[in-house]
């Protein structure tokens, strides 16, 4: 390692100013530095330790010696040096080979941080955390922990899991990465479609967990959604694939309605009844531009199509102005690429808006008749709504009650109860 005296540096700063600079650097770049340290050290835990050592030493030395010209490179090489030093000391009685290999003299400090390779490090980290050999739960936990840098307790709270369970999941996942030989690597282009899929799924899962908590009194857990959007932006920046753009667009467009989708006392407000003045125009513009880019590539998939549907909603001046024909057509495309009963249900609702409730009800009854969505509260809620619009009150009431029996979410329960009362009144 080069000594600090030899490095060009800015004039000495007050200790407070340095502390602030270090903190800012930690917030903006620590995960990035961590990703590079994993590549250099080949181990998550060693890299984590090295990261904290490097920042600790920076806090000690920078007030005295000034902030180095390239602080990120300084932190990486300091962290690596400390880790290798530690391995050497621990291994003194053991074999020295490993430590020598790590301290390969051919990899000088300058090479440690060349911007192109370093961008890849963050992508390597994402693909490693979302490796298909890991379970979906493990992928989510590790991504939030290692890529986003969330504390184990924060993740546990967000997913309503005991912290000890989550900590153990992370430890086991890291052990599997080591034992199974999961490499720290961005997949080859030919493997990308297959490998990108779990990455997108993890990000969308985190977003949805924040957008609509799967149970409990709160409708949204904002922080997770924000984290997911941040991840989505990072992915698009590093790997501008159409489906990554589509996913980011989808999240931005859904997020744009956050302020409008529940009342101050937590009641759910449906799209039709939302105050569109509360929609976030900036997010809508950003999301719409991304969808357009993804669709132009002609290599788009289900995320871009769902984003396109969200964009049609977002760009309608009011509910009546919604272009249902276009939405129904987009759902038909979606059913061809990625058919699922839930997508069919959404298609049925769009058809009901385009051709009337009777046409929609036929489709919903087909889906329910197959037994696919028998336990899905939104299927019964949709059926109830269509029956209500057709004046089939008794059937509507029965379906609302069925939906009510299936939902676990408080705001949704209250919404369904309100609809039931309206039918009786």
């Amino acid at each position, binding site marked *: 390692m080069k000594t600090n005296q030899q490095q060009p540096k800015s004039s000495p700063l007050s200790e407070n100013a340095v502390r602030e600079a270090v903190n800012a650097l930690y917030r903006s770049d620590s995960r990035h530095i961590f990703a590079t340290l994993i590549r250099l050290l080949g181990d998550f835990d060693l890299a984590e330790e090295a990261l904290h050592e490097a920042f600790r030493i920076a806090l000690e030395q920078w007030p005295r010696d000034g902030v180095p010209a390239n602080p990120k490179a300084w932190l990486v090489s300091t962290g690596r040096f400390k880790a290798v030093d530690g391995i050497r000391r621990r291994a003194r009685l053991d074999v020295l080979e490993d430590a020598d290999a790590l301290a390969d003299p051919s990899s000088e400090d300058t090479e440690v941080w060349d911007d192109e390779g370093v961008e890849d490090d963050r992508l390597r980290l994402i693909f490693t955390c979302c490796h298909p050999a890991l379970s979906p739960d493990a992928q989510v936990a590790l991504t939030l922990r290692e890529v986003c840098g969330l504390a184990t307790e924060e993740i546990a709270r967000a997913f309503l899991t005991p912290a000890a369970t989550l900590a153990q999941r992370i430890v086991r996942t890291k052990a599997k990465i080591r034992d*199974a*030989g999961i*490499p720290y*690597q961005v997949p080859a282009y030919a493997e990308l479609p297959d490998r990108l899929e779990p990455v997108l799924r993890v990000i969308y899962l985190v977003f949805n967990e924040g957008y609509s908590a799967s149970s409990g009194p709160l409708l949204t857990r904002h922080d997770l959604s924000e984290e997911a959007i941040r991840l989505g932006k990072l992915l698009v920046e590093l790997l501008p694939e159409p489906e990554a753009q589509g996913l980011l667009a989808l999240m931005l467009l859904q997020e744009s309605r956050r302020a409008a989708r529940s009342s101050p006392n937590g009641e759910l407000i449906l799209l039709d009844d939302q105050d569109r003045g509360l929609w976030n125009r900036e997010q809508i513009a950003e999301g719409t531009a991304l969808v357009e880019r993804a669709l132009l590539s002609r290599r788009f998939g289900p995320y871009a199509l769902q984003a396109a549907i969200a964009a049609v909603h977002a760009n309608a001046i009011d509910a009546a102005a919604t272009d249902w024909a276009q939405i129904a057509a987009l759902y038909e495309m979606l059913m061809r690429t990625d058919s699922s009963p839930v997508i069919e249900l959404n298609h049925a609702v769009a058809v009901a808006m385009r051709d009337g409730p009777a046409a929609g009800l036929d489709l919903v009854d087909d889906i329910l008749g197959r037994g696919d969505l028998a336990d899905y509260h939104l299927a019964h809620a949709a059926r109830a709504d269509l029956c209500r619009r057709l004046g089939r009150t008794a059937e509507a009431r029965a379906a609302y009650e069925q939906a009510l029996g299936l939902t676990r979410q408080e705001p949704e329960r209250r919404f369904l109860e309100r609809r039931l009362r309206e039918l009786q009144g």
Partner: protein
Amino acid sequence: MKYLCLICAETVLEQMTEAAAEKHLEEYVEFTQAIKESGHYLGCNRLLPPSAAITLRVRNGKVTTTDGPFAETKEQLGGYYLIEARDLNEAIQVASRIPGAKHGCVEVRPVAEDEQTLKALGFADASR
């Protein structure tokens, strides 16, 4: 690293028509040749069907045996390849070319190569 690729399928060779079995084996000739050339090959075997299996346990020094495999599943272990690969991604690339993967599935398992295991199994010199 070494990986054991366990090939499982609902239909084993013995249950195939003669023509299908022949074609299946031809695919294996080609695959085995290819991974020998690429340096991934360490070993392989095809297993006779589970109907030929016997499972034994020793309890209190007494051997008890039962017929059949220890786990009755629809998918049967039909054979394996032991391969050498740089990491799991390379192992996946090799395993995905195993002909049986098209009909059944392949479980890819890393081989334990910690010192204790190597010593216990008589590979103490580490470089097997």
